[in-house]
């Protein structure tokens, strides 16, 4: 898909806890209606960096043992791993539809880069509903793009413990 030739751009905004499959389905529906450029925008969560800045934060392993300090490097690593996990999921879904969307990682308050993706196109943003509570939503609203919210509980984590 050559994005420069298309005026419409569908942007899927995902976070590390977003319901990726549902967002992807919503984006596909839009693409069926009209051909468009497709971009996945991963909105990085800065909570890992925040919690790492606290001196008493420790990470407790799921397999037990002595808790270890949760450093900034570890926060960076966790953040990257989360992004990579989402990217892998998106690629898998895209392969099933024979699509190759771009995958961009964006800080939550990086308005300049956001404008770069959204502002120059006639864009439709597909995002989880809980994004409306996040700071980035305010910036999106200012860019007057069309926003399709997909229902999902915020911070939808998997259970802490799974059955054996």
């Amino acid at each position, binding site marked *: 898909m050559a994005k420069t030739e298309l005026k419409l751009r569908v942007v899927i905004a995902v976070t590390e806890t977003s319901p990726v499959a549902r967002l992807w389905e919503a984006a596909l529906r839009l693409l069926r209606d009209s051909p468009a450029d497709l971009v996945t925008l991963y909105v990085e969560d800065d*909570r*890992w*960096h*925040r*919690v790492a*800045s*606290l*001196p*008493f*934060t*420790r*990470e*407790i*392993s*799921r*397999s*037990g043992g002595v*808790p270890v300090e*949760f450093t900034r490097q*570890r926060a960076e690593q*966790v953040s990257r*791993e*989360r992004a990579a996990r989402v990217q892998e999921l998106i690629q898998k879904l895209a392969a099933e539809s024979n699509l190759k969307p771009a995958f961009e990682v964006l800080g939550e308050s990086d308005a300049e880069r956001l404008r770069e993706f959204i502002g120059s196109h006639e864009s439709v943003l597909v995002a989880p509903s809980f994004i409306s*509570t996040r700071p980035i939503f305010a910036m999106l609203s200012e860019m007057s793009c069309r926003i399709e919210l997909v229902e999902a509980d915020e911070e939808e*984590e*998997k*259970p*802490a*413990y799974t*059955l*054996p």
Partner: protein
Amino acid sequence: MAADAIQEYRVQPDALRRLCSLPADFEHDADEHVGTHIGQERAIDAIRFGIAMRKAGYNIYVLGPIGSNRHALIESLVGEEAKARGAPPDWCYVNNFSNPERPHSLRFPAGQGREFREDMRHLIEELQLAIPAAFEGDDYRNQLRAIEEDTKNRVEEQWKSLNERAGEEGIGLLQTPTGYVLAPIIDGKVIDDKEFNKLPKGKREQIEAAIERLSEELQARIEMMPKLRKAHRERVKALDQEVTAHAVSLQLADLKEKYRSLPRVAVYLDDVQENIIQNAQDFQQTETPSLPFLSRDSEQLYSQYEVNLVVDNADADAAPVIYESNPSYPNIIGRVEHRAEMGALVTDFRLVRSGALLQANGGYLILDTRRVLSRPFVWEALKQALFAKQVQIETPAESYGWVSTTTLKPEPIPLDARIILIGERWLYYLLCHYDIEFSSLFKVAADLDDDLERSDDNVERYARLVVRQAQSRELLPFNVSAVQRVIEERARHADDSERLSMHMSSLEDLIEQADYWARERGGGEVDAGDVGKAVSEGRRRLSRLQSRIIDAIKRDTLLIDTSGECVGQVNGLSVTDLGEFRYGHPVRITATTRVGTGDVVDIEREVELGGAIHSKGMMILSSALSARYVPDLPLSLHGSVVFEQSYGGVEGDSASVAELSALLSSLSRLPVRQNIAVTGSVNQLGRVQAVGGVNEKIEGFFDVCRARGLDGSQGVIIPQDNVKHLMLREDVVDAVKRDEFRVFAVRHIDAAIAILTGVDAGERGEDGDFPEGSVNGLVESQLIEYATARKSFAKEATKSGED
């Protein structure tokens, strides 16, 4: 000696070849009741005793040469007894669930082993359907779901309560990829260090304390999770076992009832049930693992309940009679096979293979001794099995403790088989002598006779045997003359006109070849001529060496005179044995004498070409001379005797008459007739004794004379005791009948020397002297001369010594 005196020693033509004359009422039809083992009553009784005797150690050794029909005899006798004994039990190997390296053996009545194998195969097929079906049933799923739900609730309860407590204290529980982080949350957001530092000191301390406390609680709950998991697994396992037990017990109930009378089988079926229940979870149909070695596949899972039927007597109605033609260790004892799996060799109870011992268990195992002894480890393993009365299937390396790797060691199977070894006599006597265990394991010796007496009854039975052999081989019919001729040849094969050879393979060869020649000439039946042709052609095929010797004699390369006379030179006779073919030929024996100290030198012995028996014969000559001549004087002779142009070893004493004759000729200076050859051994008293190969020797000299031209003066002297052995070729007999050749039979050296020199040997008279001019008189005169000369030499020597 006068010519008419010589005549008394001539053997009449009818004694040179004892012809066969079947009775006029000889029934020419084959008699089904005539076996190939006539005349073997002693051996047959021994075999019957051995196969009927049920005590340990009464294994049988059948002594007899190759070709004596040993196998057919044994198989026919054992076959009769085997039918009476009935089929022995079947044997199976099955998995030993508590120790798979030691498979169990199970015994079944004949035929039930195969049935059990099929029953277990059917059971496996049923289980493959029934067990997964049970796990797929709603009942199982509901119970499993209930357990899972319960466990899930317990886990979630732990998680939920912790989350709630954390939330109450303003702490959030964040999940990293590998664990958890507790973070202070204000207004729904994780605060950073700047925001935290802005908080009042009391609040900060409260947050830190809460996080500390919650961390400890979180750790405690994490540590509790494995216990919850274990409890969950145990509940699921118990459910699986309950479901499996229900499915299996239904399937096994019939089998247990069927095999209730076989206690070990019943125990095994209990083990099967227990094992399936214990491993119930393996029977659930799961997704195929990504790699084959990560999980036991279905085939492997069910194959552990298969049955390896190593001895199957389902189709047998008699005890087994097994002949193992290749008695290698695995073929006798059995083996444990391996298969390659992921680059490694693996095995299990299904790859245990029985050997001939187990196949013959409850019956008879026939083995060739020579082959058993020549295959490595077999003899010791066979004895071990017989001593232990059981068969332990293991490799020789394990048996001797040469390997330490883990492998299968199947449970031994009790052995109740009669071993019948077939071999030559010398092997039997060697084993008796050198293997102290042999006699206790092979207590029955069945010694097959090489020949049987040529009585009228036996001749008639033999004739029927010939006819039957011809019919069974679909040969042309043998007319009476052919049968008679065959019987004559069998006497020749026995080297005795009064006995018939029982060497069956040579008989079979003869009649087959006679059939061939009959067909070659287009005959509708085999006659005596065809048999004769078979004999003569058989000889011709192997007579290259004999022809070369005759040729060498004709061309005077080998110096043999067949006419004229010579002092101290006699034609002896020798036999060369080429295995399938023996032939005779003359050898020149010369002797020289002079004054000496009474010793006769055997040049063959001096150069170590003479064997022990030959040397013994030569020493007897010295004694014979001492005993007969000049009893009052020391034997003052130095004689030497040699086989001229003999370059190989000389053995036997059959030339001692010829050697003594040469010595007597030398001493008496009487020339010996070269148209007469002589064979026979002599004792110290001059008595001529029987020797072997007399037919070949006569024929050998006859062939040489015929090559040079028979003139009626030529002939052979043989011991009188050998006349009964004469079964000469028909051409020799015909030549004698035409007076072209002669055979003399003598009992004493005097007769032999008289024939050879044409001078009476002479008997010692009342005056103590031999007649003047007789051979013995001349010999004694010469010996007295030697003694006198020796005495005078001694005096001169003494006198010159005194001077």
